[in-house]
């Protein structure tokens, strides 16, 4: 049997990412072997399988890859935007674009990240750049 030994840190990628968010940092992993960026946080590189994923600060910039408006009645909070943003590092993430009417979010729009909170959990949102 091969042991994991010192390959992996005591805290998993998930905790490390959340700890970063709580400090106000949006961090992203980059594979030391193939140089691809990985998001959401992983244990192994999804491109090459390497365990050598190194944290770095995300640029926090990206482009709207797709967007939609979820229709809710006014009493249920009204319409909401839902979007997938392609980070400038490459990976995509689900998010919501804030501070804009849902229908005004367009595919290809440049956006920048900000950290918000929902139900006590820090989350990454974006607004128009």
């Amino acid at each position, binding site marked *: 049997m091969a042991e994991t030994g010192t390959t992996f840190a005591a805290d998993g990628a998930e905790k490390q990412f959340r700890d970063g968010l709580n400090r106000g940092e949006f961090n992203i992993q980059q594979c030391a072997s193939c140089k691809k960026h990985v998001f959401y946080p992983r244990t192994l590189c999804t491109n090459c399988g390497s365990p050598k994923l190194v944290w770095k600060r995300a640029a926090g910039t990206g482009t709207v890859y*797709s967007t939609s*408006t979820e*229709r809710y009645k006014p009493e249920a909070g009204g319409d909401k935007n*839902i979007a*997938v943003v392609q980070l400038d590092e490459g990976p995509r993430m*689900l998010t919501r674009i804030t501070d804009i009417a849902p229908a005004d979010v367009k*595919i290809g729009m440049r956006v920048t990240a900000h950290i918000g909170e*929902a139900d006590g959990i820090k*989350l990454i949102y974006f607004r128009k750049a």
Partner: protein
Amino acid sequence: MVHPLRGQTAVVGVGLTKFGDLPGKTHLELLAEASYAALDDAGLKLTDVDGLFVSSMGRVFHPLQVAEYLGVKPSAIDGTNVGGSAFVNAIQHAAMALHNGVCNVALIAYGSTSRSDRKSGTPRVGGNPNAGVMYQSEYKPMLPVGSYALVANRYMHEYGMTRDQLSSVAVTFRKWAQLNPRAEMRGPLTIEDVSRARMICDPFTLYDCCLVSDAGAALVMTRADRARSLKQKPVYMLGIGSGTSHDQIAQLADFTVTACAMSGPRAFGMAGLKPKDVDVIEVYDAFSINPILFLEDLGFVKKGEGGAFFTEGHAAPGGKLPVNTNGGGMSCVHPGMYGMFVSIEAVEQLRGNTGARQVEGAEVALANGNGGLLSNQSTAIFGTAATLGAEARTTKRASAKKVVKKAAKKAAKKAPKKAVKKAAKKSAKKAAKKVAKKVAKKAPKKAVKKAVKKTAKKAKRR
């Protein structure tokens, strides 16, 4: 070499319950009713069942529950849940278990009270299957519809598909449903009705979304040798392919390409067939964008032209490539997971039992299950007895011409030159038939096998 699973197993029985509002029934009762019907259809009994393949949205020990409820003591049991495609994916598992002698009679079954549960506010056992997915669930997206909507918007952005083209999908399936007495929604439906209906999640209106039904469905499989002695005309499993691309929607690499681009070539490769060999298609139409993507990714329509394909009526009754002949999940039935129904309609079409909606002369049918948020695609290709064996394959269709030509060249070495020349002069189809017969008779088996292998390889590459 012909794939070892090709044509080795067959669907011998199918069973359906009533569809719609069935508040007086439990999910297990619906599953058991459909199982009884499918076994009766096959001329088999519950006591013959020794392979059980089921799947539930939230019940972790569902296979155990079903085995106990039916009183079955299976030697092969499986409850893999890859979403609504699970029941097509299960055909792969059942075929492997049957072919390897791990079981002899496989029952794939499902029952659901989705509609009654929604009406009565009964919470789903096991909760929301889309809950607890980190980096997705925390944003509380409207799921599953939101993920398909994001895909549809990206597709429309890249390929310029119009709202009315998208609407033609629901309209096409409604036309089929009008020919199916069992379908839940049979009233008229126009492009305008769909485009102008209440918006749920852009670009989807109410009619872009599938139904929510109570229903049960079941399917029985055996090895091909046993199938031939049973009550119904066997429908052979020629090819099965499974493809998995992601779980949460943001991880789908290209929003315009589904895992059908993997499952399709795998299924066609096993079957030794190509898209143009298929007579009728049944796909999981959870949302109107699905059939467009699936037809493209399975190789039936060029990427970006799926919308026009529906608008031009090619998939509708009388069209060149009938799709969702039962009315689909949008107009026939959709009990939470629809995977059973694509296979059952494919089988019914190949039996030639579907009345007004029958596709004349259907010999090859493709069923595609969709699971999760476009996450898993499972593609099954079924065929009648005529599609079994290399000869049947090469004689049946013009698409097999190349195989025949190659086989004919090899055969020419042994067969009299005259016969080959004469055959070559005749129409492609006729020639194919004649040559193939000669090939079968005179050519060494190797040549035929080699030719078949080449088609399989080509299908893989697509």
